[in-house]
């Protein structure tokens, strides 16, 4: 269980806090979606929860231990992160990249063992990239690359997984596929947090939403409570309507956000 308490963070030389007194918890077997407009502090919040930024106020606890007290390798075995984007000047294969997930499990002179190989194989299978294992990462499509990066995070075997806009730039097919994958990982018992701009998929797949605005929590909890016309119009400063998902299936009734034309409001 990953818990953030009253987190506040101001970037160096910034006047306003990027994140202000935000509290949240990510429980095993659940998916928390963090939503909000650009600049709302979503990525900063994720960095606070991953330990790459230290909060000026508040604390991040991992199973009742302060995240900041963990060593780098120990932390990486507990919290895996798929950041928004990455690039490399030196091409690697999918298998090599997913294998990097074992970094925190291996000493500098330790060679890769059978168990490491099995974990990597399983992660490749789980994210449906096993067939691409020998391809260069740079040659993959956006959706395949994203799945490979999630596979690398799974190879860390961390009980907590944080994802920053995992569906950015992906088409309908890959977006659906990705949220299905998150659903499966949740069923495996992982504690998941995803920062996303996709309100409609978040409403269908997430257990809880956290809506940030100007660094503060504007609303949090069940998607039906967070996604209201009044709240969203205020946060996004745009006219919109909410309609129930038409179904069929378990998503029927989930609140779907439909933005209006400016003049039709």
């Amino acid at each position, binding site marked *: 269980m990953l818990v953030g308490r009253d987190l506040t963070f101001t970037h160096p030389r910034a006047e306003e806090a990027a994140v202000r007194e935000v509290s949240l918890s990510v429980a095993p077997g659940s998916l928390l979606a963090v939503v909000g407009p650009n600049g709302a502090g979503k990525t900063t919040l994720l960095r606070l929860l*991953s330990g*790459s930024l230290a909060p000026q106020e508040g604390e991040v606890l991992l199973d009742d231990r302060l995240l900041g007290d963990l*060593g*780098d*390798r120990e*932390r*990486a*075995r507990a919290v*895996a*992160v798929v*950041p928004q984007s*990455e*690039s*490399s*000047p*030196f*091409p*690697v*294969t999918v298998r*090599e*990249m997913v294998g*990097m*997930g074992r*970094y*925190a499990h*291996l000493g*500098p*002179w330790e*060679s*890769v*063992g*059978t168990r*490491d*190989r099995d974990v990597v194989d399983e992660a490749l299978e789980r994210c449906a990239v096993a067939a691409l294992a020998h391809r260069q990462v740079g040659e993959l499509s956006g959706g395949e690359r994203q799945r490979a990066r999630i596979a*690398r*995070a799974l190879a*860390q075997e961390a009980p907590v997984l944080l994802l920053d806009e995992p569906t950015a730039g992906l088409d309908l097919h890959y977006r659906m596929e990705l949220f299905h994958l998150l659903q499966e990982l949740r069923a495996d018992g992982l504690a998941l947090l995803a920062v996303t701009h996709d309100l409609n998929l978040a409403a269908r797949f997430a257990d809880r939403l956290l809506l940030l605005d100007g660094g503060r929590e504007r609303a949090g909890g069940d998607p039906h409570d967070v996604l209201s016309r009044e709240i969203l119009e205020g946060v996004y400063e745009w006219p919109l309507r909410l309609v129930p998902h038409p179904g069929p299936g378990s998503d029927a009734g989930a609140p779907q956000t439909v933005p209006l034309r400016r003049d039709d409001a």
Partner: protein
Amino acid sequence: MSVQARTWRASGRVAVLALAVLIAGAVSLSLGASGLGPGDLWRAVTGAADPATETILLRLRLPRAVLAALVGGALGLSGCTFQALLRNPLAEPYVLGVSGGAAVGAVCVFVTGLAVALPWTLSLGAFLGAVGAMALVLAIARRASRGGMDTRVLILSGVIAGAFFNAIILLLLSLADLQSFRSAIFWMMGNLSGADWGSARLAVFLVPASVVVLSLARAFNVLSRGEEVAYYLGASVQRVKLTAYLAASLMVAASVAAVGVIGFVGLIVPHAVRLAWGNDHRLLLPASFLAGSAFLLLADTVARVVVAPAELPTGVVTAVAGVPFFVVLLMRGGRR
């Protein structure tokens, strides 16, 4: 392919390169101005050679071959390390100003006449200049990036410091007499003609620094995906960067102090290995060391032989031979 098969393949490649170093070493010992051939080498090894032959082989060619192998390896390994540290394929051992600092130290020794009076002060001056440059660049970079070590700031500091050192060198040379001027220029082109068994003390710095760098192979792999990703994967990014900078700079400082500035080895060798075998640093680092050794052994042999009894500066040979070789590799498209 299984993990075992992969490990065997990597070990096989390292073994092939180690063999290449031995062959290049044998070639280097067998060729030279005095006309001694492979047969003489064999007789010297078995103890059947005459004293003059033995002296040439064991006092002149062998220490020079050992020095070439050490320096070539250090340049290959440090070039690869700077590429990983700066995440920049254009990085090479001299990119952060260490060679410039060494050259300032060496030129000072030439200009003051110490090089003639006390020859051993030359490598000392170069080494002190190199270590001074390393400390200066690091201090600027740390100050400018507020405590951490931003590699973009580091590369800027290195380039700026290098430009400053160049200006100092030109200033000193403009005041120098013709003999010091010529000696200094020749030194800066890099050559191994001063090799004796004393130059092997280089290994005192190279061996520990190489071990330290090799221990970072896996960290370089994750670092290649970016510092943020490396952190999330469990790397202690700041510590890895600082360690890599210090170890690689020390290797470069020791090499430059011993033989001057030999270019292109540290840029071309790691790239040749990358193109052939990919970017896994667990193979790339040892392979860069060994390939650098073999390459400099051969280049130095060419430098000794082609215009015998005169010699070419080794740094000229590495550039002239290395660049076309690299272009061919690049055009073949590398690893698919």
